[in-house]
């Protein structure tokens, strides 16, 4: 971990990103068919039909005085922007923090709808991309040279930002491959080994809670749809798929999901894990006081935890997620985000170049990992010894970055998000989340979730395909 970056304003963000292999990026190796690498949609593979914008036009645009508006919640991003403005003095970037997460998307959607007040470039989490492409609100970046960046970024991130026709909807900024942080001291005290499989994990949960009724092995937050999706992702589920414009298949209660629901619902009903909402005062207190012996989290978790549970420094260690099949280790992603260009922009070239530079320029990418503590989305940076080799005292000197970089390689490539994310999240919370919190039948809740989503999708005019 880059402990040096621990000022209040920079310790916060959850992920990192960077890139050292300098020129490899902008020059770009041969970029042939850059396509969807299996990601965002059924078609996949074919080169984008959009005509490339000529280098002359790009050079011209980058010399024309322009002001770009950039909506982002990333703190102190001005430092990275300064690098861009230094290279392209004609372009000024105005940063606006219009809120974070849901607030940000709500405003963005309303502004796009009004045709007035939307930014040129916006921060966008991976899971939100389809929700904005369904309304045709994002600019395809492939004609602006983005296709050349394919090999720079971690494979699964590129899948997440690619469309079925080879469109590139956004440029990855940081990621959150999931892993497990655990309290070595509590494990030692009760003679528990870090669990390698979910079966081991369940056994440890029972053992620990029996030995000390005030302590739980973990907390599966009943409000955290994102974590559930990450676990689905790890388990290999494919809850959503979109093909064509109006066809969607919804599969949130298939066999894999049911396995997951039976597992976590069972542990919740037994009362051997916590289910309280995360990122609340009570939850922070619980982490500080050792109520939970592990935190199932993502690559941004280690830095976050070391800032918010200072009183437990040195007691934590990191490990990969427990596995369903120990022979085939896998993980999912939770968090991370991208830069997307809004289609209505009046300066598409400048905006597209900015989105690419910000996240792929080696210096800028590296700055994200040191200043904002982002977990990188670019391959060269993940391999950089100065990043991966960093040892953190909070984790007893463990090389946490390297561990999560390795986990990142096990994230599967073809997980997709629904084109109506907010609804999926709300419905999850009110069905599956509620069943966990109230210790009711979580498997049955999956069916309720499926029904709600199907009804909603049909109401919105989608053709819902049978699983």
């Amino acid at each position, binding site marked *: 971990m880059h402990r040096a970056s621990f000022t209040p304003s920079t310790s916060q963000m959850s992920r990192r990103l960077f890139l050292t292999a300098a020129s490899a990026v902008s020059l770009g190796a041969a970029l042939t068919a850059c396509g969807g690498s299996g990601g965002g949609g059924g078609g996949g593979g074919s080169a984008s039909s959009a005509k490339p914008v000529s280098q002359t036009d790009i050079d011209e645009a980058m010399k024309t005085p322009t002001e770009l508006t950039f909506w982002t919640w990333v703190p102190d991003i001005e430092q990275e922007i300064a690098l861009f403005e230094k290279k392209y003095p004609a372009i000024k970037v105005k940063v606006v923090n219009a809120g974070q997460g849901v607030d940000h998307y709500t405003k963005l959607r309303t502004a796009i709808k009004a045709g007035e007040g939307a930014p040129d470039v916006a921060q966008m989490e991976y899971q939100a991309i389809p929700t904005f492409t369904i309304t045709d609100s994002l600019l395809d970046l492939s004609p602006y040279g983005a296709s050349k960046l394919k090999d720079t970024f971690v494979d699964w991130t590129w899948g997440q930002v690619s469309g079925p026709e080879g469109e590139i909807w956004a440029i990855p900024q940081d990621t959150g491959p999931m892993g497990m942080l655990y309290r070595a001291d509590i494990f030692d005290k009760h003679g528990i080994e870090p669990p390698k499989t979910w079966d081991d994990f369940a056994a440890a949960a029972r053992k620990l809670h029996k030995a000390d009724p005030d302590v739980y092995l973990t907390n599966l937050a009943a409000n955290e749809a994102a974590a559930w999706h990450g676990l689905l992702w790890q388990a290999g589920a494919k809850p959503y798929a979109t093909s064509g414009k109006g066809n969607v298949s919804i599969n949130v209660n298939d066999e894999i999901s049911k396995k997951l629901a039976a597992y976590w619902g069972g542990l919740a009903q037994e009362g051997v894990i916590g289910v309280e909402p995360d990122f609340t*005062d009570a939850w922070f207190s619980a982490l500080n006081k050792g109520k939970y012996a592990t935190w199932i989290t993502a690559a941004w978790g280690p830095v976050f935890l070391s800032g918010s549970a200072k009183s437990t420094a040195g007691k934590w260690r990191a490990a990969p997620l427990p596995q369903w099949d120990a022979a085939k280790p896998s993980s999912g992603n939770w968090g991370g985000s991208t830069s997307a260009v809004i289609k209505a922009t009046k300066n598409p070239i400048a905006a597209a170049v900015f989105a690419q530079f910000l996240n792929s320029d080696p210096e800028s990418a590296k700055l994200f990992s040191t200043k904002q503590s982002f977990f990188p989305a670019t391959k060269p940076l993940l391999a950089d010894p100065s990043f991966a080799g960093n040892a953190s005292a909070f984790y007893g000197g463990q090389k946490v970055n390297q561990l999560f970089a390795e986990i990142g390689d096990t994230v599967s490539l073809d997980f997709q998000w629904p084109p109506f994310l*907010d609804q999926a999240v709300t419905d999850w919370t009110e069905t599956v989340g509620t069943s*966990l919190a109230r210790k009711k039948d979580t498997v049955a809740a999956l069916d309720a979730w499926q029904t709600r989503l199907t009804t909603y999708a049909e109401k*919105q*005019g989608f053709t819902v395909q049978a699983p």
Partner: protein
Amino acid sequence: MVLFLLMFVTPLGYAAYLSLFQERLIGGTTFVGLDNYVTALKDPLLREGVLRVAAFFAIQVPLMLLLALLFALALDSGLLRLARVIRLGIFVPYAVPSVVATLMWGYLYGPDFGPFAQLGEKFDLPVPHFLSDGWMLSSLANVVTWEFVGYNMIILYAALRTVPQELYEAAAMDGAGAWRIAWSIKLPALRPALLLTLLFSVIGSFQLFNEPKLLQDIAPDVIDSSYTANLYAYSLAFTGQQVNYAAAVSFLLGLVIVIFSYVVLFTANRRRTS
């Protein structure tokens, strides 16, 4: 006045216009007439939300007004030391934005680390889980009561201050005690003010939004997106991207409030004449 109407009626009119359409993510906008209203009338989530706020209204409002009344009478009785400090102290919460009020109470309610829970643990007393399903409505009622008792109290108190002194003198001369004065002179004098506070409370209760919205963060399993009718309208518009339907729901909710207000006024007036 033209400006007044323009600023106020235009958005409403536009919303009413929108409520006659349906816009889908796939397939665009179509005119659907009153379909949205028909759907809304049949919507079980909306019905639940309305019933819940009706229950909230039935419990919280009488309690709040009774407290406000008692406090106002106590202040007006002249029997208190530090009356000024007490009056202002009770009124202060009104100046606290509901965002902050809910933040504070949410912390105090906390099941593990909230001060009530901590005290309960120390003295081995059972402390209710304020944020559980069974307690949530009461906990919300407490926050709202905390915010608005002082405000209602001040209205009532101001009304009490205007009761002519001669009335009291006359009553005292007739040998009426403090209780009798309160019952026979003060209460009748307060009737219009009480009616007014009641009317505001109808609107406030049925439009309950900020408090449940903010408590949702710490009790997501209890407060769902249709917990109150207004919250439901909000979720439809912002989460579900069903602006048209949300507008229809809002108008229906407005209608419910209008009806309730008239019922309140009507009963009060009938009682007065009988």
